[in-house]
């Protein structure tokens, strides 16, 4: 049986490794988003190799100095392999140092998820199937959120943290994931799809944006009106900021790609407040054409995707913290105490497994 002090040290290792994994995954989400934005997903026709080479042996100069599509697609594969290796290392750390079995299996779950995501990406290439690309694009943020959950779950709560009184913390990540999936579906509407299908996706995405915004506002209110640990408030505040940025990026992404719809053109061309604001912010005259594949459009659209994944990660981490406090309350009152649940975050150091 490890000593209490040794267990504490080892848990910190897994927590640090979870942070490393989480921080490495967000750039991967960015690169994946760049691939979709620039439609570079089929730049390499084979998988798991690259143009017949072993993934790691593909000539680096051909990759690095080659065309953008190849650079970003092969780079995504290399980066994803790195994240996979970090995940394997995290599992090893968990098995060596983490005494709580549920946390070890949770870390193993990350490995299953990252392998599944890699296979999904590979099948998308082999089958050249947009539907799989959409699934790949909606599960990537789930893996990122999962790593954030690992960070939250391996965190050691400060003594005397207040318990959660009620609410449904898991509803938040569910709502945001629905929105992420709707966004992925919107980005992958097939070229031969109907404009009504696209319109339905747009409208669903907009409605869900309203729901998520309201839910995050409620989360913020709850975090400040009830006793809550500092970490939870920080996550709630970051989620709120993320939503504001996301709404701006959403408008920016639309304007960057499609310019203004007819009703908006009338509004900015009229004589009301919208027109005055537009003229003050943008200036009079016609908006010039965007440049397809230009950095302005590419980064705005991709940032919207990556920021959505970040929001999912933040609210998932928030939900893990909130849920752990509820379990802690149950343990304290005995009202819902179950042997397994009581171990969630507050298992005394040094217990055996």
């Amino acid at each position: 049986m490890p000593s209490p002090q040794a267990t504490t040290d080892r848990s910190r290792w897994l927590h640090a490794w979870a942070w490393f994994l989480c921080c490495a995954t967000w750039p991967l989400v960015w690169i994946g988003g760049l691939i979709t934005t620039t439609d570079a997903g089929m730049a390499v026709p084979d998988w798991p190799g690259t143009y017949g080479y072993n993934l790691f042996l593909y000539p680096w100069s051909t990759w690095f100095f080659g065309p953008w599509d190849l650079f970003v697609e092969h780079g995504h594969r290399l980066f994803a392999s790195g994240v996979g290796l970090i995940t394997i290392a995290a599992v090893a750390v968990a098995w060596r140092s983490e005494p709580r079995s549920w946390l070890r299996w949770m870390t193993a779950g990350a490995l299953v998820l990252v392998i599944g995501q890699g296979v999904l990406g590979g099948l998308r290439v082999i089958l050249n199937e947009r539907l799989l690309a959409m699934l790949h694009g909606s599960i990537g943020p789930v893996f990122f959120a999962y790593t954030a959950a690992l960070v939250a779950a391996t965190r050691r709560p400060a003594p005397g943290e207040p318990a959660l009184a009620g609410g449904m913390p898991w509803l938040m990540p569910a709502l945001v994931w629905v929105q992420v999936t709707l966004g992925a579906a919107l980005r992958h509407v097939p070229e031969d799809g109907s404009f009504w299908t696209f319109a339905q996706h747009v409208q669903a995405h907009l409605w869900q944006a309203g729901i998520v915004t309201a839910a995050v506002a409620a989360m913020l209110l709850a975090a400040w009106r009830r006793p809550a640990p500092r970490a939870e408030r920080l996550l709630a505040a970051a989620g709120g900021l993320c939503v504001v940025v996301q709404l701006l990026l959403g408008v920016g992404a639309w304007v960057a790609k499609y310019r203004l719809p007819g009703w908006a053109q009338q509004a900015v061309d009229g004589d009301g407040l919208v027109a005055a604001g537009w003229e003050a912010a943008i200036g009079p005259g016609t908006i010039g054409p965007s440049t397809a594949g230009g950095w302005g459009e590419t980064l705005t659209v991709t940032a919207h995707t990556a920021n959505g994944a970040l929001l999912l990660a933040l609210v998932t981490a928030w939900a893990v913290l909130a849920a752990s406090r509820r379990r802690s309350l149950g343990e304290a009152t005995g009202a819902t105490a179950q042997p397994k649940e009581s171990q969630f975050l507050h298992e005394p150091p040094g217990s055996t497994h």
Partner: protein
Amino acid sequence: MSRVSRIAALPLAALAAALAGCQSSEVEFEPNITSAASLGLSAEQVGSIEGVLVEWFGTPDAPRLPERLPRLAELLDAGRLEQAAGRVESHTPGVTHGLYRRHCARCHGVSGDGRGPTALYQAPYPRDFRYGVFKWKSTYRDAKPTADDLHQVLLRGVPGTAMPSFALLTDDERETLRQYVVYLAVRGEAERVLQEFVADEWAPGQPLVVDDALRDELFAGWIGPIVDAWADAAQNSLPAPPAPSADAVALGRELYHSERAGCYKCHGPEGQGGAAAQAGEPPDYDLWNAARLAGRRSGRFAELSRNDLPVRASRPRELTAETPHGGADHESLYRRVHQGVAGTPMPAVGALRPGEAGPLTDREIAAITAYAQSLMATRSPHKGDGPSRSASASNRSRPL
């Protein structure tokens, strides 16, 4: 169902909803139902015409050029069409196939019918290539655009619309896209003349059957002239404008407000454009929306027509403090004043063919152009005019 199960079911339901409509299937060219409806064709006739077109022009995945149209083979390269068509993929680093679907189809549609997935929210709608009519060109009104005209649109984009600049593509890729757009236009025009042929020459309701003799007749008398018009486009270029005189703006202002040119009737006395200048006038439509309207009024293919894009009335362009869609430089603006804008209610005030006389002289047209440019350089004077602007806004887009 427990609360947890219900919560878990939410994302699954959302995923199922998102997947609906995303199933892959074999991609086909969509028939021009709008045109077929206005010509009174039956569904069987439309299907038989599509069958003939597949035999002659191939499919979106495997385009083909009819062997009996040698001028078309001079105009378009089969290898480029193959590279532009089909799904997006690469087999050699840096060489992308499926260029049209990658860069164009989400707006212009796989068939080039301007009904791509994003079309509904765009104003103006993306161009429907199938009518072979293009707005931004250097040729006479009824002539096809030159290769350079289409290149310029690809290079510069169209200000104020969703049409971006493709300046970051290579010259070779832009040329491939240009050729594929011409291919779609020729195919679309061939479809329309076949529809007209069936409507005029065929027994009502009888599907089109093409034997060798009829095929030769159709190529020679119906489809051949379409290809000739594309091949000879450069011969129909409008001459460059005369140098503007010192009093050009003053003369242009006078002409702008005169009955001879009549510009003020649509673009407004102050160049405010929109329907404000047309108060009390019935809405006017461009070629594509007029065809849509005619197809709907025919009552045929009602279900399909209901699924078409809403009809929008044309809106005369605001001139003050705006960059026109076709560009603000003197030469391109002169051409649009001279020949109007093809496919739209904007009329020509110059000669429609070389050697003919038009309502206005080239010098007068250059003067109007100079005056229009002076309006574009000024701030809109009507901001804050309220009532007339608001009243006009409701008349600009008219879903039917």
